[in-house]
């Protein structure tokens, strides 16, 4: 009896093997396709941009202001404007973002109020960027009379990326082992000393990685800038944060919508410059992560 039963099972098993192996292969293929699809898309995009734009990249392109003549047009004002804007975005969003995260993780009690704030932050992360543009237009441009200045744009962009920075910082702070905090208390540290000397240094890798990804988003966003009325033609460099300016995405968007094909090539060259800046920033993020990771 036992023998027979065993044989039946063996047969069944043997029968099923090809199907199981086939399934295995199909799923492997499907996932490979999914991965390849994204990859190919990226390659096609990059190839297109580089084939169109690479020949238009030159020192003049970086040194000239915008122009109606494609061969004389450059992105000096846009690059410098973007750097100025980031000079506002980086300190403002870091201070506000990390401050909020520290408060929520270290100080706030686990009550309704905290949950309410937390929920709102998560929701803010999903709000379309145009809405932040409208907020910036009403609050910074009109109510606070900042006009379409670097400061107004920088503050708007800071608000836009704040939720991401807060959430990333919270995750990083939460990942700091409890033992480290307790050890600090054990040595007689106050809460502030513990946060400053133990929590923040060990969370800094996570905080900065998340933040720099958020800064990359601020560099690439166009919609809020269009809404708050950032001009596209600016042939001077700003002298303070209260000056008008233009930014890379504005310039690129303007060039892509022009009728003359030459401008589309310039847009591609502009995108390459934007990509280089983004890659530089992301490499800094990776470098920081590797340098500070697992020190504790």
């Amino acid at each position: 009896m036992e023998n027979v039963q065993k044989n039946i099972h063996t047969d069944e098993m043997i029968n099923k093997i090809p199907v199981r192996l086939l399934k295995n292969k199909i799923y492997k293929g499907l996932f490979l396709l999914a991965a390849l699809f994204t990859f190919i898309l990226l390659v096609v995009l990059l190839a297109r941009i580089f084939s169109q734009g690479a020949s238009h990249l030159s020192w003049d392109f970086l040194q000239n202001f915008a122009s109606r003549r494609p061969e004389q047009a450059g992105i000096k004002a846009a690059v410098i404007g973007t750097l100025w804007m980031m000079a506002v975005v980086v300190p403002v969003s870091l201070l506000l973002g990390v401050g909020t995260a520290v408060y929520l993780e270290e100080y706030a009690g686990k009550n309704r109020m905290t949950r309410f704030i937390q929920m709102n932050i998560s929701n803010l992360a999903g709000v379309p960027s145009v809405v932040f543009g409208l907020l910036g237009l009403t609050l910074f441009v009109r109510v606070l009379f900042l006009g379409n200045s670097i400061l107004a744009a920088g503050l708007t962009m800071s608000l836009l990326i704040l939720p991401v920075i807060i959430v990333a910082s919270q995750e990083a702070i939460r990942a700091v082992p409890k033992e480290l905090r307790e050890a600090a208390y054990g040595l007689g540290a106050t809460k502030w000393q513990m946060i400053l000397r133990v929590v923040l240094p060990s969370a800094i890798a996570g905080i900065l990685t998340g933040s720099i990804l958020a800064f990359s988003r601020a560099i690439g966003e166009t919609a809020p800038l269009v809404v708050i009325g950032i001009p596209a033609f600016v042939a001077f460099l700003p002298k303070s944060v209260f000056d008008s300016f233009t930014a890379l995405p504005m310039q690129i968007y303007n060039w892509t919508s022009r009728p003359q094909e030459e401008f589309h090539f310039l847009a591609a060259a502009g995108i390459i410059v934007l990509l280089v800046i983004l890659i530089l920033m992301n490499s800094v993020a990776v470098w920081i992560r590797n340098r500070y990771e697992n020190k504790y």
Partner: protein
Amino acid sequence: MKKIKVLTGLAMMSTALVLGACNNTSGEGNAEQSAEENKQMQGNIQIDGSSTVFPIMEAVSEEYMMEQPNVKVTVGYSGTGGGFEKFIAGETQMSNASRPIKDEEKAALEEKGIDFTEFKLAYDGLSVVVNKDNDWVDSLTVEELQKIWLDNGKSKKWSDIRKGWPEEEIKLYSPGTDSGTYDYFDEVILEGGQIDKSAVLSEDDNVLVQGVTGEKSGIGYFGYAYYLENKDKLKVVPIDAGKGAVEPTNETIESGEYAPLSRPLFTYAANKAVAEDEAVYDYLKFTIENAGSLSEEVGYVKLPEEEYKKDLETLEGLKK
């Protein structure tokens, strides 16, 4: 040690700040060097409005700032409506428009006590185009255009428009409803009616060009400059407004023969800014004097000479 690491991190974050500051000083140097010729003016001029007019103003500003590097001109492209919104809020001294100002915009300006003057800069001929392989359409009358573009709840075939044309469904491509281009088409062709709901709307005219290029039974309309740039990919449709079919060319647009789709492009200036700010007056004068040649250079059509003369007289009147 830990403190030092935090500081290094912060120092890196402020690199952007330092970079900005460095470039700033070099910018000042440039301005001083070239500020030695003729009468130099100072000032800030903020311009916003139509993205159609943007290339003209970009060209004007580029030339102007070579002569007057201390007058800081900025030009935006929020669209005709968006531009007027900023003009009404008093944030800009000049507002570009690809259609005449609307009554409600006029009322809002009046309420704010902002007097303004309209200046014509150039003409644009809205060009109706079909696919290169479309061998049946040789011209369209205004009524046929209306039949094609107005919504009647059903899809339309070319054979519905004129007898003998193929039984193929018409695919429509139109600029987005926020654009001055749409507003103008709405005024002269749709006359306030509902545009066909199956029409593909896009704010980017290059998307429309691609649409019509790739669709044999497609039809679209957009600014003259976009047609000129894609002449070899598209077929332009001569428009018959009762006096025979007229194709858009520089001559027919300038003479007004290409009707009703030839439209003027404007800039609106705040009277107070012209009267009180020498730089705004000077810039506007420069604009009117050069709009003709510069607009041709960026793909539009210049106005007849008298129009610019009239504009200049109006401007002198504002100066007092």
